[in-house]
């Protein structure tokens, strides 16, 4: 019953997205992409995704954080696992004044740093999807 999982990448760097997408597609995932938070959120509302891969620094600042918060407030999207992929490390987060880019500011499931080794990426993705499915099967 192995239904193909559908993922979405929201990241404003097309080169980076290309690299990530190709790794995921080789691992038999269906991958959609969006290059800004607005298009990304629209795509998320249009259909169901098994996982979101989200960049932090987009557009004028930490727009990825704002999107992650919006997703957490949305009853339909709240359960979707999010993997944050960022080049902003914890310790430099405060260098963007006035912008909360600290990964702990938002309730995300996992965080990996750019660039990410294909093996590590695939491990994280499959673990997150599996965890979300198991959570879903548990009686509330």
């Amino acid at each position, binding site marked *: 019953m192995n239904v193909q999982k559908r993922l979405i990448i929201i990241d404003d760097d097309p080169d*980076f997205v290309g690299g990530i997408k*190709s*790794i995921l597609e080789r691992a038999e995932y269906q991958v959609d992409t969006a290059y800004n938070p607005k298009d990304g959120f629209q795509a998320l509302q249009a259909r169901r995704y098994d996982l979101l891969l989200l960049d932090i*620094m987009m557009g004028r600042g930490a727009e990825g954080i704002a999107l992650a918060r919006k997703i957490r407030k949305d009853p339909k999207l709240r359960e979707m696992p999010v993997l944050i992929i960022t080049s902003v490390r914890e*310790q*430099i987060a405060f*260098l*963007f004044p006035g912008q909360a880019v600290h990964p702990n500011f938002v309730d995300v499931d996992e965080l990996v740093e*750019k*660039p990410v080794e294909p093996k590590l990426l695939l491990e994280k993705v499959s673990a997150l999807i599996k965890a979300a499915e198991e959570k879903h099967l548990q009686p509330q």
Partner: protein
Amino acid sequence: METKSRILLIDDEEVVIDSCSQILAGGPYEIASASDGTAGLRLVSEFHPDLVFVDLKMPGISGFEVLEKIREMDSTIVMVVITGFATVSSAVEAMKNGAYDFLPKPFTPDEFRMITRRGLDKRRLVLETIALRREKEMLREQFAAIVSHELKSPLSAVQQNLFVLADELSGLINEEQMKRIERMKTNINDLIQLILTWLRVLSVDVNKIRENFKPTSVASVLTKAIETVQPHAVRKDIELVSSIHEPLGSVNGDEGTLVEVVVNILGNGIKYSRAGGEISIRAEKTAGEVLIAVSDRGVGISKEDLPHIFHDFYTGKADRAGEQSSGIGLAIARRIVEAHDGSITVESELGKGSTFVIHLPSLKEQSNSEPHTDLEMAHS
């Protein structure tokens, strides 16, 4: 048009205010006056003076109190006290409390003009310093943002695609070609690491470290640091000898960054020691502070390098037998220690070894712990 400097005179003697106003009349000044402290303080917030003259002896609230209040309102305002000869000692006292200068009564117009000019020069310097500091801070932040976004992002994307290529091409290209890709990956990784190192320098923001301060056990910091470097020491056959005089107590600080400091210094010791050498770690609590001393018998630091080793990107002129250094470890260590209100010093002799000493202010023990005298007895 040049903006006028604003001068506020606070004195209960009308004759003083009148004569001062007359002396400065016609100059590039705007002058306001008050005959007592309360009215003077109100003018400080309405008139925004650059320079304030305060008479120390006034009815109502005292001149000292006025000085203190002004300093609370705006510490960049330059304050000069007016005082009679008999009260020169109180003028000195006032200067200890933040007054920049004093004007003894009676004074000549020239004396008053000179002190006014000096006071306004001081004010300009104070404001310039603040502006420069702010600018430096902004540059630092912007540089960090540029380094991280403009340099690191494209490199990360290249590396990401190399990862993918290596994956996709495995089995399709020969070993020699694969090695070429691997070398590219290694080189790009080195570049990314270099950028991260730079960012690390820029990002040790003293104020941010301080936000996470809590009581931190010094013994635990040392244990963690020693554990971290132990494998490197073993590999180079270097013995770490520690003599820790318990109880070391706690400091108000951030464990992670303090461990980083000690790891850095121990790591340097190992790096610059000969195989088979020894590094000693001594720690003790003395009156009000904790002392951590790390001594090695390694290559040492030359006299000309010694004053610079705590500066960013300084790697030293002396040849260090091929040891690579980014020249930032000690600079970061210093910044972290200083954020903890501590100090770090070094003594070294070329060829003999180096001793780094860290002083950190102790946290006052809770009342339920041992009384202070017991601690001191433990040392005697």
